[in-house]
């Protein structure tokens, strides 16, 4: 028979063993789970560190032409080392890769330390290609860095960084005015130079100026003496290069016709004869009212006045450099003519003795010939006669 005390003791022992068995199974499980959690935490931390490193990567990509080789210069400007594993080259218009099956071939992984740079030859990848290309560099951690868009000709960078030429023509300029053409990019296009200034030295002068550009949309504006020229919708003009590469601003001025300068000789119509009598003669020049521009008298011949008959030209004071406006008359010479005989004196200004330049056109204006006759009558006395 088992006593009641023994039975109670056995129950306690059984319970203890039960608890021990359960704990013996539970504790390793808890420890194991804890170690798994630790591993997971470690992986999460590593993954986080990877992501931080990934986004710390910074790479500048430049496209260079070194001899016959098209080269990427990749500079690690970030704080950590990175490995370039792949280079893509693709047409920016279509997105198509230049290498038929994807990335450029024969690019070996390149480790680049912070602050260092490396050169990657991509000539084979773009061999013979003409068009606009962008390069994309992929790192081991999965970041992508792109170059600027570059225009290639036969797989090489053109000598000029501006592969296109935008020509701007200004027609029929106004002489003496200052014209400024301003080319402003409306997107990421580049242009050089941005402005061009020209002072018209002749009226109706035409000028064409070339701007180097990359592909893009540009606003082309014409200023006259720093003021926008009112040409309606024609100024400013918006052009998209390379679809359009020429701009014309026609100021629509009329052609200027040259007229002859008119010569007027002013002297007394009659003088009484006296041996050695001096007569004052003035030579004026007039710009006809039909002239389309002012004229500057640029030269007057010293011997513009000749005398035939009973007199001779002793001396002339010449004036030039004056501006002459239509229908205006100015003095160009003041002369002394000496009466030498009783014959009439014929004063003549030959054609072309007075020369001027048109303000707007820069054209040369010459005088037409002119003459004047002084009648010499019999009489006495000497000295000057100026009536």
């Amino acid at each position, binding site marked *: 028979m088992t006593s009641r005390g023994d039975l109670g003791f056995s129950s306690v022992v059984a319970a203890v063993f039960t608890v021990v068995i359960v704990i*013996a199974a539970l504790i390793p499980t808890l420890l194991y789970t804890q170690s798994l*959690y630790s591993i*997971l935490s470690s992986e*999460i931390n590593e993954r986080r560190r990877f992501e931080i490193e990934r986004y710390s990567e910074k790479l500048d990509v430049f496209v260079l032409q070194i001899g016959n080789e098209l080269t990427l210069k990749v500079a690690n400007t970030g704080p950590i080392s990175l490995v370039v594993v*792949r280079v893509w080259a693709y047409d920016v218009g279509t997105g198509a*890769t230049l290498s038929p099956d994807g990335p450029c071939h024969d690019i070996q*992984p390149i480790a680049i330390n912070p602050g260092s740079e490396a050169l990657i030859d991509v000539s084979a990848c773009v061999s013979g290609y003409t068009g606009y290309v962008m390069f994309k560099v992929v790192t*081991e951690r999965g970041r992508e860095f792109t170059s600027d868009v570059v225009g290639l000709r036969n797989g090489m960078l053109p000598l000029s960084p501006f592969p296109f030429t935008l020509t701007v023509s200004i027609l029929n300029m106004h002489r003496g005015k200052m014209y400024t053409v301003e080319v402003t990019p409306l997107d990421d296009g580049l242009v050089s130079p941005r402005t061009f200034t020209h002072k018209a030295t002749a009226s109706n002068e035409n000028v064409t100026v070339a701007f180097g550009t990359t592909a893009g949309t540009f606003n082309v504006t014409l200023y006259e003496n720093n003021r926008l020229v009112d040409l309606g919708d024609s100024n400013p003009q918006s052009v998209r290069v390379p679809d359009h590469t020429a701009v014309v601003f026609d100021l629509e001025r009329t052609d200027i016709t040259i007229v002859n300068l008119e010569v007027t000789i002013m002297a007394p119509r009659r003088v009484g004869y006296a041996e050695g009598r001096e007569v004052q003669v003035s030579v004026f020049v007039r710009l006809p009212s039909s002239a389309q521009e002012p004229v500057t008298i640029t030269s007057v011949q010293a011997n513009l006045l000749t005398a035939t008959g009973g007199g001779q030209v002793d001396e002339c004071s010449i004036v030039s450099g004056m501006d002459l406006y239509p229908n205006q008359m100015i003095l160009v010479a003041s002369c002394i003519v000496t009466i030498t005989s009783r014959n009439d004196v014929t004063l003549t200004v030959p054609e072309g003795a007075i020369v001027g330049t048109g303000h707007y056109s820069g054209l040369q204006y010459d005088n037409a010939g002119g003459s004047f006759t002084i009648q010499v009558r019999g009489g006495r006395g000497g000295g000057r006669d100026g009536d």
Partner: protein
Amino acid sequence: MSVAIGIVLMLVSHSWAASIRAGSLDQTNKEIAQQWSLLLVEHAVLSDDGSSATVYVSNPGKYELVVLRCVVYPRGAPPPTFSFDEHGPVPPGVPPDMSLVVPLTCPVYGAGPFVIELFAIPAHLYNPREPSTNAQYGVTMKYDLEG
């Protein structure tokens, strides 16, 4: 009798503990696999007729991935309804051989600009007969594509 009960009890408790440990290990492995599931769209280009796109992907993570969804649709529009479709494995690059880039052909819906949407899960969690199994451990990524 008591000893027999004790042994049974011990076996039951240990098998329960083993089961718990196996479940925890499996769960941990899946979560770690998800952590290191990375997919990078390196480049994408539309076909000439615009009906499909070639999407070049690489795997900078640690585990091979299976792409189950690759679809191109208009940016800002809701993604089209599209069942899982296996696009092939994308193995991870192993330094120094990081040259693994996998081209995927993906259908295109609507007009550009587009967004490319990819869904991938670790290959060892993928069940071809039941693709949606373990789908909660997959990763989704989007990539803008001008078109």
